[in-house]
């Protein structure tokens, strides 16, 4: 390990010795290898992707030998993937490349990631306080239906947001009562919430709309435009949905709250060692109730994006979350129960969904397979192949006051 003195003497070699920076550089170069072969640069020879990819993998191996296994293997994987994708891209036709890889891929990545970010951060608060929340999927589904219902009957998307948040919080409150006060098994309880949400949303969708689609003209979540024009940035990040912007802000807020405030310290204490937290006067039950309800509110806000966002367009479908709550859970685990990690994982999973949609110009059936990526990556992450993910120590354990 380099000391601060050595760092000051020779900043360049110190930063090179810092395995963390090398690993990050490796991942960046791996992405660059694939990026070189697609628009706008679009190198038509395989040489550049292969060269850059090999450098990325080499940096990764070096990082692994310095003890940063997770980052190192990530860089190796990025390098190999970069080479593979680069070769594939140079083989494919220019028109197809133009359709698949344009600025809207970035915009769609954020769009697919938005509900995942909300769900993952919600799950993170709940689990950081020591309550496992498998019911994210159900809470999301409730938000999706009651949100669009609120927007339809209330006449405004803002009403929809409030209704979704309220219903999500309510469902989470019920779940919290079971998980905290009744000390029922949290996995069983969460599974029950998921079933119940499918039934309730399905029942009331038929009851309230007589199994017809929700009428057109529902007030939708608006986009907020920050860059206008026809350039790359305007198309990629210039015109995103209000909830997408909110999700960016939420990551920062979640980080500050969880790691820089007394409240966050209390939450983490309840998740790591509730007895100790109780001893110093923290009301463990109150903290857990608050966190679970917050997770329900956030998951429901992620859910309303599915029905009221640009993809849902004011419609609801039976069981429309279709596993997104579980991807959010996966993102939280993949991100190691940290806000930035969960956000990064959600973006990665959103990217794989966006890519699956875009790659349909090549093959519709193979594009379906891309949907598997989040689950496989999470499985690898929990298996500890690329570094271990560590849950809060008291996660899932009911606390009995003495």
């Amino acid at each position, binding site marked *: 390990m380099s000391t601060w003195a050595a760092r000051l003497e020779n900043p360049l070699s110190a930063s090179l010795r810092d395995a963390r920076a090398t690993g990050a550089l490796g991942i960046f170069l791996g992405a660059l290898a694939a990026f070189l072969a697609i628009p706008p640069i679009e190198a038509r020879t395989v040489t550049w992707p292969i060269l850059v990819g090999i450098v990325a993998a080499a940096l990764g191996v070096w990082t692994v030998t310095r003890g940063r296994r997770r980052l190192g293997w990530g860089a190796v994987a990025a390098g190999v993937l970069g080479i593979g994708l680069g070769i594939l891209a140079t083989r494919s036709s220019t028109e197809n490349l133009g359709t698949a890889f344009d600025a809207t891929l970035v915009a769609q990545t954020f769009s697919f990631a938005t509900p995942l970010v909300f769900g993952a951060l919600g799950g993170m608060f709940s689990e950081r306080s020591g309550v496992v929340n498998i019911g994210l999927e159900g809470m999301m589904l409730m938000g999706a239906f009651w949100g669009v219902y609120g927007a339809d009957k209330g006449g405004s998307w803002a009403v929809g947001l409030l209704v979704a948040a309220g219903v999500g919080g309510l469902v989470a409150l019920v779940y919290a009562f079971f998980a905290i006060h009744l000390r029922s098994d949290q996995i069983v309880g969460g599974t*029950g919430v998921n079933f119940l949400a499918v*039934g*309730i949303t399905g029942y009331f969708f038929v*009851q309230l709309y*007589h199994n017809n689609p929700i009428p057109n003209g529902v007030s939708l979540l608006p986009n907020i435009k920050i860059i206008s024009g026809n350039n790359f940035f305007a198309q990629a990040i210039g015109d995103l949905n209000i909830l997408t912007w909110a999700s960016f802000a939420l990551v920062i807020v979640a980080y500050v709250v969880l790691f820089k405030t007394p409240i966050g310290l209390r939450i983490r204490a309840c998740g790591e060692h509730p007895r100790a937290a109780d001893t110093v006067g923290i009301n463990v039950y109150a903290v857990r109730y608050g966190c679970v309800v917050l997770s329900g509110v956030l998951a429901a806000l992620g859910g309303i994006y599915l029905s009221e966002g640009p993809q849902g367009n004011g419609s609801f479908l039976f069981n429309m979350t279709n596993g997104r709550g*579980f991807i959010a859970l996966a993102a939280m685990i993949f991100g190691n129960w940290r806000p930035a990690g969960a956000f990064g994982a959600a973006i990665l999973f959103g990217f794989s969904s966006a890519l699956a949609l875009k790659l349909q110009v090549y093959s519709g*059936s*193979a594009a*379906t397979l891309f949907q598997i990526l989040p689950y496989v990556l999470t499985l690898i992450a929990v298996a500890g192949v690329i570094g271990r993910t560590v849950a809060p120590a008291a996660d899932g354990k009911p606390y009995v006051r003495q």
Partner: protein
Amino acid sequence: MTDPGPSPPPEQAAETGTLAARIALKQRAGGIVVPIFTVIFALVMSGIVVAATQHSVHTALLVYKEIFDGAGLNWIFHPTTSLLDINAYNLSQTLLQTSTLILTGLSVAFAFRCGMFNIGGQGQYFVGLIVANWLGVNFAGMNPFAHILLCIVAGTLAAAAYAGIAGVLKATVGAHEVISTIMLNWIAFWLASWLFGDGGPLQNSTQPTVPVSNQVSPGARLPDFWGVQGFQGVHIGLFIALAAVVVFWVLLNRTTVGYEVRAVGFNPDAAAYGGISVKKNFIRAMAISGAFAGLAGAIDMLGGTTNYQFGQLDVPFSQVGFIGIAVALLGRNTAVGTLFGALLFGGLLYGSFHGLGSSSVIDPQLAGNLTYIIQGLIVLFIGADVLILYVWNSRKKLRRPPAKPAKPAEATAA
């Protein structure tokens, strides 16, 4: 039969003298009271939902009757063996549904008895179904008995291996089986979508634009034992499922494997101290658990429950693996309990989805969703036995005020 519930506190175990005392003890531990109360409670709650939304208590009562009739249970009042009778036909369909649910329920129950929550029954069911379809479509012209055996055994083993991944991960790196089985569920989900979808490897070879698989070749189909030509009959999968109940019970209660599984389930540390390999049992129990779910998928495919084929659009609507969780929990993870749980859900599922299909009482689409609500309530409340036992015990307290105070929380603390 041993009760999977937590062992009673010593001062209560001491009073096990008479039969009545023992029954009381079982009830205090939630033996049969909790499942029955939960079911009644869930049914009443769903009735309230119907009564409130339809503004009529009468409608709610009629819905109960319709589901009862739809499940074919009124066959009991005028039995006939002809499947042309609508009641007999409904009953046969309920039995079909039940045989699948028995197996998915046993799957969840077996893992539970080893202290693991196999939430991935749906994925393992898909794996069994996919393998059975693949082998059943190919190898046409094989000896029927050998062909059926091949499909079932291969489907079961494939699902066992698939579930075994979660067991291996838990045993080697300590990955929580709930997380890994959820991930495996969705991997199987999208795999099935891809395989049976347009352009997928198992997609129909004669209709390239229809996202369904080929039909299993006639030789590999399970024979019906109760049915008429042209209608869906009851195939011998029901007997396979019933045999699986027996296998489950014998395996768990009369073999060394079962003893080790239960020992690990009660207390892994104590089991390890007693010389039992906890890791080996995690893997083995998970594989056996997956085998039950895979068997369910195989007999569903070969038995024509899905018309001998499976489509991309069927994938998101297949819920039997998940319902297995409710079945097992309701059956308290015992063999016989699972059988009854499967019967209840088989009746509910078929009775609400199809029995009400021609009903004028309530929109049939509503009734189908009612089943999900009932299922959700059952799962939610079965885990909260503290609540139900509290109600049960306070009822007794009301009757006998001077009795010593009950300790519901202690009797069920996990």
